[in-house]
């Protein structure tokens, strides 16, 4: 794609970046869920621990 003005360039690059970030914001919670949904509760950190 060719650009003739800074306005064109910024519109394209910023526009794509915004779309990407919106996509990432939607994807991150889903990815976090994928990572953690099978997790079993582990030792809690505020419980007395043998060795701190």
């Amino acid at each position, binding site marked *: *794609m060719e*650009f003739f003005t800074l306005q064109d*360039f910024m519109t*394209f*690059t*910023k526009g*794509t*970046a915004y779309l*990407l*970030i919106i996509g*990432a914001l939607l*994807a*991150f919670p889903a*990815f*976090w869920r*994928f*990572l*953690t*949904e*099978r997790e079993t509760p*582990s*030792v809690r*950190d*505020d419980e007395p*621990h*043998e*060795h*701190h």
Partner: protein
Amino acid sequence: MISESALSTIKSLLKPDKTWLTPFNIVCGVILVLGAIATLLRFTFGLSAVTNLTDYQPWGLWIGFDLLCGVALAAGGYVTSASCYIFGLKRYHSAVRPAILTAFLGYALVVFALHYDVGRPWRLPYPFIVQSGTTSVLFEVGGCVALYLTVLFIEFTPPVLEWLGLKKARNLVVKLTLVLTIFGVILSTLHQSSLGALFLIAPSKLHPLWYSTYLPVYFFVSSIIAGLSMVMFEGSLSHKYMHDKMDKTHLEESENVVLGFGKAASFVMAGYFVVKVVGITMDNNWKYLFTGYGLWYLVELLGFVLTPCLMYAVGVRERNLNLIRKTAGLAVIGIVLNRFNISLIAFNYHLPLSDRYFPSIWEFVVSAFIVVVGLLVFRFISTHTPILYEHPEYKEAHH
């Protein structure tokens, strides 16, 4: 005055029970001898006798590998101690000492390697004494590395003081843990990102796909991935070769460490991937992706960022520790590849092949020598001091 354990170490060194001639020791011995020869050549005949460095490429393998990779892979120290002492994730406590030791040795060897690379190494302290350019990024890197090495040294002393039986000194240092951890995080944030910022001075030399005003962000975020992955990678090696040195707690907690750090590494990698893609779009570099360098960039981004990110995620979800440990190895290679791309492969990309830099055999020898020194010192310290196990006298101690 000196504890029993320290005395038994001295005795075992003087009268070893087992033969020292194992394949590992022989290979290390050969590399150490070659390294000694390279050291002699470097400090008698100068840099030109042992390196292929030129004015086009004044930073070569020693900076690209020993310094950039060394600092990134030593990030496990601040990542682990921050997760344990600042975020309160005490279930990762058993990973702190090996991580701090790896970090301390990593930074100590970075400074050691700098003595080879800097033309006049006795001027290394000059930035703090005679220069006046405190606005230089390199000044900030130098200052942070010097301070952080000191912090790591203090953080590393408790196991040595326990080994020596110096209880009072050990308890004093343990009281400083939180302050030292906070210092460590601040200093690491500063210099990990500044190492990337060093390359901002060379927009015409570094290929556009790797050059970005976000370089400091890339270096900092990738250092977190490097730190997490290195702790898992080093842990899996310790598990394999130093299993007998680990106590019950360490063995039990290692599963938690691998699952927790794998999860963190996967999520941070996903963020790193997104920031890298945003970087491409902000500079509108899409057109370069279909060139030779572009394909190489895609190998790095898809093969060594996105793939390990997904492998970590599947490993954590399936609780597949073996997969997570293997992924840690892949991620470590990815970090090394990234630092090589920025400092060596995509640097001076516009020069004809005949003017491009390729390290000399002696440069490889010195780098291998430094890695071997690190491995041997790590093995010695973790064999003789309470790194992978808790000292019986301090089992109940809180630190």
